[in-house]
């Protein structure tokens, strides 16, 4: 199916081409991509910063707890006491207790064996010592008043790789650890805490079943000799971070949705105002321009009335279109004038063609009441008007003037010159001058005022209708062709004078041609022998004579038809360069006198 033009589209189809919608979509897509990248980066930053802050809090809490405790008392005896109980407990018992603890952490408080209770019973006395209670109170204070979820003291037992809890700020049964409780730790991790340089924040993040993600941070307590007494540690559950991330994500998504839409709508509006609307108005102007033009409405302010002030290429385009419109209007106006002028000239030329044709005798038979001769002639101009002409007229009852002439050049100048020549020749002939005298007089008249230096070749003959004698003179014209009764057409190489209008004072020699009944005379202009075919070949007098002889016994009409057909066959499609003019006189004879009644008409 061929594609539709924009003009054929419905409004709905055209809307697909809306730049604003495209901009809107592009804005949304790019904003979403940018938003997602920002979200990932933002979340990463958010998690990192929050986690770091929590670790800092846990560390600071541990440090402060350690510092306060150290000012109030020495924890070493209490730690040693607990650790000695732990170390004195057989490892199988410790294993049982560990299993029970993990069971408790998993299932709650159910099903603890005797060993479990006995083990913790061993620490019962310590719990009520003055120092221990004081330690516990400090830890509890810190736990309550800081953001840490637990603040506690533990000691590492390198033999069993376990961290033993000494005291725990969280005293609840569900979440707190009991005195003497312990958990396995990796040696590498505890190593970091043991070899602390005193500055770095020590931390570790675990994923425990009980509390989820949890960060532990703290520092070792050392005695005067530099030996590690215990660790002050704080736990912070990171579920806050996860929750924070969730709300961060929601907040981010909502604000991004709002911003993206706002930006997209904004850019769509911007594009619509600054790009789409101006473009549409230019397109509409173009459409209405064409429409008005087709309807014949000449108003010229389609583009000129556009008021596009975008300050960019579109404004430029509108200005260029306005200029173009004005230029086109000017051009069209000019063109209309030219066309009108051309039409006028065409009309006048058509008229001139008819006037010229009417100037030449063209009603046949030309002399219906003169059976002793017959004349037939045609002129086919190459342009609307021609420079060739023929003429025949009765000078008196017994004399027929015959003219065949060719003006130099073609078209209107030749036609004007031809008219003057024709009238002059006929006028002088009617005054009873001989053929040579007529040509000489006409030549003088034309030469006296011939600034354009045009000339005309003329063959002029006067036939005595009684005797068939022609007295003729040739002013540079083609050779006449004559046929004797029963014979063939032959060129007559007559004596030539110079063309008429060429030079003043020319003399023309007169000669005689004797026509007998059955004789024919053929006169023509150079358009006949010089008719040219597409191969640039001339028709020539030989072909002309041949064509004449084909119809030598026919009527004057047949003779001219035969030549005309031969020329047409010869030139085929090649354009006609010169006027083609022919005349044929058929002398029938048989009358020596014309009755007086026949002349007055």
């Amino acid at each position, binding site marked *: 199916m061929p594609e539709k033009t924009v003009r054929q589209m419905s409004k709905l189809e055209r809307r697909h081409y809306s730049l604003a919608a495209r901009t809107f979509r592009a804005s949304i897509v790019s904003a979403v991509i940018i938003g997602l990248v920002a979200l990932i980066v933002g979340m990463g930053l958010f998690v990192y910063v929050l986690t770091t802050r929590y670790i800092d809090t846990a560390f600071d809490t541990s440090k402060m707890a350690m510092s306060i405790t150290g000012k109030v008392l020495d924890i070493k005896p209490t730690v040693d006491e607990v650790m000695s109980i732990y170390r004195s407990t057989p490892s199988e018992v410790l294993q049982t207790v560990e299993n029970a603890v993990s069971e408790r952490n998993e299932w709650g408080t159910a099903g603890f064996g005797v060993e479990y209770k006995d083990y913790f019973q061993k620490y019962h006395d310590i719990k009520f010592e003055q120092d221990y209670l004081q330690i516990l109170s400090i830890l509890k204070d810190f736990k309550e008043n800081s953001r840490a979820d637990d603040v506690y003291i533990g000691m590492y037992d390198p033999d069993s790789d376990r961290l033993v809890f000494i005291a725990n700020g969280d005293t609840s049964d569900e979440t707190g650890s009991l005195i003497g409780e312990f958990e396995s730790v990796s040696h590498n991790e505890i190593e970091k805490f043991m070899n602390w340089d005193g500055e770095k924040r020590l931390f570790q993040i675990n994923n425990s079943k009980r509390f989820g993600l949890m960060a532990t941070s703290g520092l070792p307590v050392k005695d005067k000799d530099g030996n590690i007494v215990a660790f002050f540690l704080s736990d912070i559950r990171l579920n806050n971070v996860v929750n924070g991330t969730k709300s961060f994500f929601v907040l981010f998504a909502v604000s991004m949705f709002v911003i993206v839409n706002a930006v997209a709508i904004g850019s769509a509006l911007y594009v619509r105002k600054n790009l789409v609307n101006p473009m549409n108005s230019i397109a509409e102007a173009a459409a209405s321009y064409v429409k008005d033009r087709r309807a014949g409405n000449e108003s010229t302010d389609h583009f000129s009335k556009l008021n596009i002030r975008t300050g960019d290429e579109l404004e430029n385009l509108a200005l260029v279109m306005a200029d173009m419109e004005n230029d086109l209007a000017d051009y069209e106006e000019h063109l209309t004038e030219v066309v009108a002028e051309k039409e006028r000239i065409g009309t006048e030329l058509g008229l001139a063609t008819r006037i010229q044709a009417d100037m030449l005798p063209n009603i046949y038979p030309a002399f219906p009441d003169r059976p002793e001769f017959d004349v037939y002639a045609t002129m086919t101009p190459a342009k609307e008007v021609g*420079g060739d002409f023929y003429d025949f007229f009765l000078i008196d009852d017994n004399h027929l003037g015959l003219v065949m002439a*060719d*003006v*130099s*050049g*073609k078209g209107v100048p030749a036609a004007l010159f031809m008219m003057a020549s024709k009238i002059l020749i006929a006028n002088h002939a009617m005054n009873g001058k001989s053929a040579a005298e007529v040509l000489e007089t006409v030549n003088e008249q034309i030469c006296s005022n011939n600034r354009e*230096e*045009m*000339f005309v*070749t003329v063959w002029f003959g006067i036939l005595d209708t009684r005797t068939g004698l022609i007295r003729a003179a040739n*002013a*540079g*014209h*083609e*050779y006449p062709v004559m046929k004797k009764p029963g014979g063939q057409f032959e060129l007559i190489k007559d004596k*030539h*004078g*110079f*063309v008429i209008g*060429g*030079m003043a004072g020319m003399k023309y020699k007169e000669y005689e041609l004797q026509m007998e009944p059955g004789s024919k005379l053929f006169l023509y202009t*150079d358009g006949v022998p*010089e008719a040219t075919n597409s191969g640039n070949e*001339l028709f020539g007098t030989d072909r002309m004579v041949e064509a004449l002889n084909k119809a030598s016994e026919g009527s004057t009409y047949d003779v001219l038809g035969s030549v005309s057909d031969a020329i047409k066959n010869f030139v085929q499609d090649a354009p006609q*360069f*010169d006027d083609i003019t022919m005349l044929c006189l058929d002398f029938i004879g048989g009358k020596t006198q014309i009755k007086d009644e026949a002349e007055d008409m």
Partner: protein
Amino acid sequence: MTITKKLDGTNLTVSLEGRLDTTTAPELEEELKTALDDVTELTVDMAKLDYISSAGLRVMLSTQKRMNRQGSMVVTNVSDVLMEIFEVTGFDSILTIK
């Protein structure tokens, strides 16, 4: 049509090539209008001229008239076809044909 001019002092030789007809005659006329200034001897070489129409003859006539006033003019290398045209039109009696 090709027009070739060769000026030697006040002697000008104009060589014509092709057809001298209604379309090309104005070209030659224009060309000669200025070229003939100060020329006393004009030679028109028609060796390569195939055809001359009445419009071409008109230019030859006006050129001959002009040269009659300021010097002389000869036409050379006239082919049989051209000679016939000159004879028919009587130009052979006006032009100096060599």
